[in-house]
């Protein structure tokens, strides 16, 4: 699969402050891409460069193989973290205006808006003013406006903030559906569970530098330590613990079960086979729990940022 977005060695300074330093990011077409990083790392600056709000000092950005230019505005849908709508303007009018700014004709915009309003069951909001809506309701409008012009690239900065779980789920499903229809999605978020759930690829930016990127599965594979979480029932738990302690690299485990069994984390060497461990364990007692420990995005995030 080719890359829809190619950010190549981009640097950006604000006065003496270095916001981005030689950052390169590739976003594969049709993927959901997680752009991660602590606060102030430079994510928003990078997103603003892709949206042509700010210009990079150095480096290039290509969208669909073309150097970024004014015509790409209609190919990108951007939901910024700092978002809002004109408070005293009516919902429908405002959505029409924003859609037309993205290059849609008025008639086309109206048609698509009707479709979306019906889909999200917000049709009767058309003549309400934004200030009459709740924050979550306004966010829905904002989402519709972002995706209305069917852009190739969707950029969401903290898309779920302000939504209740039900609406967050609704929006999540819509994002997945848009991806199926061919859109590429960039996520910038601190909510690691949604990254875990949605993202195929990630890039981690810290202190203006990209410190990690790639397919999420590859990264997890690289970060896993061949450790297994084990629960085993035995008559003499203490004796078994000592025995396993001699034979393997064992540490204390934290997980919840119904019974009071022996819980351990067992780290294997690279050449050891999990099956051999399992066979050994079954010969010592009844195995109730056997799971390979895969690092969560959260763990990877914290570990990498701390080591950096």
């Amino acid at each position, binding site marked *: 699969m080719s890359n829809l977005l190619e950010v190549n060695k981009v640097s950006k300074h*604000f*006065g003496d402050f270095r916001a981005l330093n030689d950052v390169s990011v590739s976003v594969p077409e049709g993927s959901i891409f997680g752009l991660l990083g602590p606060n102030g790392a430079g994510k928003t600056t990078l997103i*603003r460069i892709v*949206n*042509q*709000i700010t210009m990079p000092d150095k480096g290039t950005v290509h969208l669909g193989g073309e150097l970024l230019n*004014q*015509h790409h*505005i*209609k190919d*990108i849908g*951007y*939901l*910024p973290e*700092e*978002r*809002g*709508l*004109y*408070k*005293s*303007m009516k919902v429908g009018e405002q959505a029409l*205006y*924003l859609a*037309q*700014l*993205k*290059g849609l004709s008025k008639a086309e915009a109206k048609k698509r808006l009707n479709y979306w309003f019906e889909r999200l069951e917000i049709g009767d909001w058309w003549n309400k003013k934004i200030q009459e809506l709740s924050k979550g309701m306004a966010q829905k409008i*904002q989402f519709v*406006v972002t995706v209305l012009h069917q852009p190739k690239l969707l950029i969401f900065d903290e898309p779920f903030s302000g939504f209740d779980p039900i609406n967050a789920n609704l929006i999540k499903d819509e994002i997945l559906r848009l991806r199926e229809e061919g859109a590429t999605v960039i996520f910038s978020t601190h909510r690691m569970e949604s990254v875990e759930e949605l993202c195929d690829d990630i890039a981690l930016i810290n202190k203006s530098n990209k410190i990690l990127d790639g397919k999420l599965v590859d990264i997890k594979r690289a970060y896993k330590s061949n450790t297994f979480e084990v629960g085993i029932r035995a008559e003499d738990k203490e004796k078994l613990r000592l025995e396993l302690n001699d034979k393997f690299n064992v540490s204390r485990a934290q997980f919840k079960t119904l019974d009071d069994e022996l819980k351990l984390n067992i780290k294997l060497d690279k050449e050891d086979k999990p099956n051999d461990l399992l066979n050994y364990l079954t010969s010592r007692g009844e195995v109730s729990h056997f799971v390979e420990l895969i690092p969560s995005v959260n763990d990877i995030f914290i570990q990498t940022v701390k080591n950096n």
Partner: protein
Amino acid sequence: MNHLPLILKREYLTKVRNKSFIIMTFLSPIIFIALIAFVAYLTQLNNDKVRVISVLDESETVQNVFKNTEHTTYNILQGVSLEDAKALVLETEGTGLLHIHQLENKTIDSQHITFYSEEAPSLSLISEIENKVEKRLTNIKLQENGVDVEMINNSKVKITIAQESFEGEKTSKVDSVIKLIFGGAAGYLLFMFIIIYGNMIMRSVIEEKTSRIIEVIISSVKPMQLMLGKILGTSLAGITQVVIWIIFGGILTMVASLVFGVDMAEMQSPQQQAMQQAMENPEVNSQVQNIANAFYHLPLTNLIIAFILFFIGGYLFYSSLYAAIGAAVDNETDTQQFMMPIIMPLILAVYIGFFTVIEDPHGTVSTVFSFIPLTSPVVMLMRIPFGVPIWQQILSLVILIATFIATVWFASKIYRVGILMYGKKPTYKELIKWIKY
């Protein structure tokens, strides 16, 4: 993509549909007209009251000059003592009592004349009486010294100097006044327009920041387009408002004068009456002729073209500054520190216009300030009726437009950076840094 018309339309419609805008558009002329009508009514009320002044002239030399007028009735008392006269005036609630002492073989002077009243009389009343007494006493003295008063009156000469330029253009004093009114009105109109609608532009920029919609918008349009759209849209709304004010105000004036029977033109009654009296006088007829001539002499074509150009230039120049301020701050209270440098030159321009240009329209001060772009729109508009060489007008306009382009560039820099900055009140130093970004 050119979104300017779209942005302009939205700005215009939002402004025009705004409730407070609509209310102000229709309420302002009503309040204004009501105020004028009220003042006119009060003036009439005052004028309708007839003053009764009793005169006790013991010398019996002056009393004949007091003739009843529409607003004043003179009550000549004879053969009563001062105390009785006072009591009488008090009893009849008269305005006051003028008392002239009887003195033998001595001419009357200030020491012998006293005006008694319950409340302090108006200045105009006292000077009116003083005038009458003075005139009479002067005549008496002249006669005593053997001078023929008739002869003096006949020897008086009145002069109006005819003015003519070297090119043969005839002007008069009236011309200058008319020019002043024209120039002053044009300059003042621009001043008001900038202050009212410049502020509106600034608020509209701030609104986009506080509602946090700016980043959404700015990912679709260039800041320059957004800024221009705002300035133009708001200006059109402003023009709409002014036009409605004029039309609506005109209608209201007509209705008000019909309903209340108050002739608005009669408000300045004393002056008006003087005018009317003068009208019957052939001498003053030429005065009217002069006014007509003055209009005719005004460089009208030049005035209209220059008004349009300088108005647009000056307004756009200042609005881009207002837009930049709006972008630089987070809320309206923070705008104060940046407003001063904008308001000061504007006020300076109006002062120069009203004091220096009147005194010497082509002097160094007036000329210099009609080239400096911060003051040139107002000062030049005030100078033009007095005849400014075309090359000066063009030069001033070129400087203004060049500065306008520079300001837009500068403002859009601040705008571009400022609209995405939140939470912090910028200093001038930071603003300069933003321009370098």
